[in-house]
């Protein structure tokens, strides 16, 4: 009896694994069904499953979109992958941020780029606002591509010991629900004010856009602070706002917060989109988390199923996050291009993303 041929692919932690074509197909179908069950969104159509089967059974090292289907890249994390350390998968190249942005424009041919503080959170960045603005100002003179200023609201830094507000993670295990909620409500006000203030600093130096990244990393209060800040900036200035999420579902650390009458806890990407659009954002970046115990085929199928549900109803451009650990990309420090290029193409060809 002849041996069944196998395909070399990867798991969600990037480890190499051999699977048969039937096993890959089953994973793709089950990945899509997993997203559909969680988000109550449609599963992939048969022709879409076929595309993913062809992609994952191909021995080709690199995959790509069809010519003419290319999309736009927006880059969160600024130049940290060049200038920072391993915390941002950075290589700490001996370049300043200006040189790195110009490399992204010319050597790497990125469609857009952004300036951001190395820490990337609004709380530490606001103290260096004039320096941050000066970097952006200088770069606007010498670059052609659209330049964002980017940062994370990162509400977690407003809680003790990093900030002045009681930490809900300390209060909740003690059963102090009301106190934990009150702390989040106070902290989100401070965070919202900082997000608005730092955004306005970048208007004076003519940013092309502002990128609120890793939004809702501290749950529903983080998301509310960001939506309110986006609404204020979008309604009072002509600065376009991009909102990129931290995870696929908004965690309910508070549990009762609402925006425009909609409870934030538990929202999935297609539901988040509706509120992001109401807040006036120009671009939305949904996230779908990678499961390291499942194959990349399963993860990509799950991710594009969620994203397809977002792009199907979006009025604004959708740029799903496809960095390490999200969007079907494996969770590992040095990500393999074979799987990144597959996740990349699938997001556009099947997910119908406007960019990444």
């Amino acid at each position: 009896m002849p041996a069944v041929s196998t395909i070399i692919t990867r798991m969600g932690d990037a480890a190499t694994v051999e699977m048969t074509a039937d096993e890959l197909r089953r994973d793709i179908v089950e990945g899509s069904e997993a997203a559909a069950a969680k988000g109550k969104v449609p599963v992939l159509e048969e022709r879409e499953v076929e595309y993913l089967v062809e992609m994952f059974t191909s021995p080709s090292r690199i995959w790509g979109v069809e010519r003419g289907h290319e999309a736009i890249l927006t880059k969160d994390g600024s130049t940290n992958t060049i200038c920072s350390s391993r915390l941002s998968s950075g290589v700490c190249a001996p370049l300043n941020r200006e040189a790195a942005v110009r490399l992204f424009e010319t050597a790497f041919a990125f469609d857009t780029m952004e300036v951001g503080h190395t820490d990337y959170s609004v709380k530490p960045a606001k103290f260096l606002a004039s320096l941050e603005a000066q970097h952006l100002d200088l770069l606007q003179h010498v670059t052609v591509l659209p330049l964002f200023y980017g940062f994370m609201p990162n509400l977690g830094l407003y809680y003790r010991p990093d900030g002045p507000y009681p930490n809900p993670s300390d209060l909740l295990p003690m059963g102090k629900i009301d106190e934990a909620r009150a702390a989040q409500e106070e902290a989100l006000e401070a965070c919202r004010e900082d997000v608005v203030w730092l955004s306005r600093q970048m208007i004076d130096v003519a940013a092309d856009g502002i990128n609120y990244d890793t939004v809702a990393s501290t749950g529903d209060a983080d998301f509310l602070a960001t939506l309110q800040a986006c609404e204020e900036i979008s309604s009072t200035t002509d600065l376009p706002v991009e909102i990129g999420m931290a995870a696929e579902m908004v965690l309910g650390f508070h549990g009762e917060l609402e925006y425009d009458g909609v409870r934030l806890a538990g929202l999935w990407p297609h539901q988040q989109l509706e509120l992001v659009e109401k807040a006036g954002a120009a671009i939305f970046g949904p996230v779908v988390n990678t499961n390291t115990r499942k194959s990349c085929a399963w993860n990509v199928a799950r991710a594009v199923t969620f994203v397809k549900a977002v792009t199907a109803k979006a009025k604004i451009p959708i740029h799903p996050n496809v960095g390490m650990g999200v969007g079907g990309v494996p969770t590992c420090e040095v990500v393999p291009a074979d799987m990144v290029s597959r996740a990349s193409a699938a997001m556009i060809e099947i997910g119908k993303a406007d960019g990444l």
Partner: protein
Amino acid sequence: MGTGDPSGMGLAHALASSMGGIKTTGDLVARMQLNKMRLPEAKRYVADKLGVSLLDLSDSTVMRTLREDLDIGVVTAVPGLAKGLEAKARIAELLDIRINCVERMKEKIGAPLR
């Protein structure tokens, strides 16, 4: 996009699916997305303004020459062609859009000397 080592993540996406920035018309289409246009609408808008096909938009062979003809910034180093803010001023006119730093430059140039 997200994080990950530069060659494995950023460059992999750039090669697999990106429009190609100022090598092609990625920067121009991106500017229309900042005006809340979805990808097909943004591409059509730019193609119409440039008088090229949708396929041409991400064709570096076509666009390298056209960008030099239009003098809107090119990816390689060519002395004498529009750079940075100069190129963006021409892009704003070409696409009939407002670019913040171009508006600021106009204000600075037009402001009276004290």
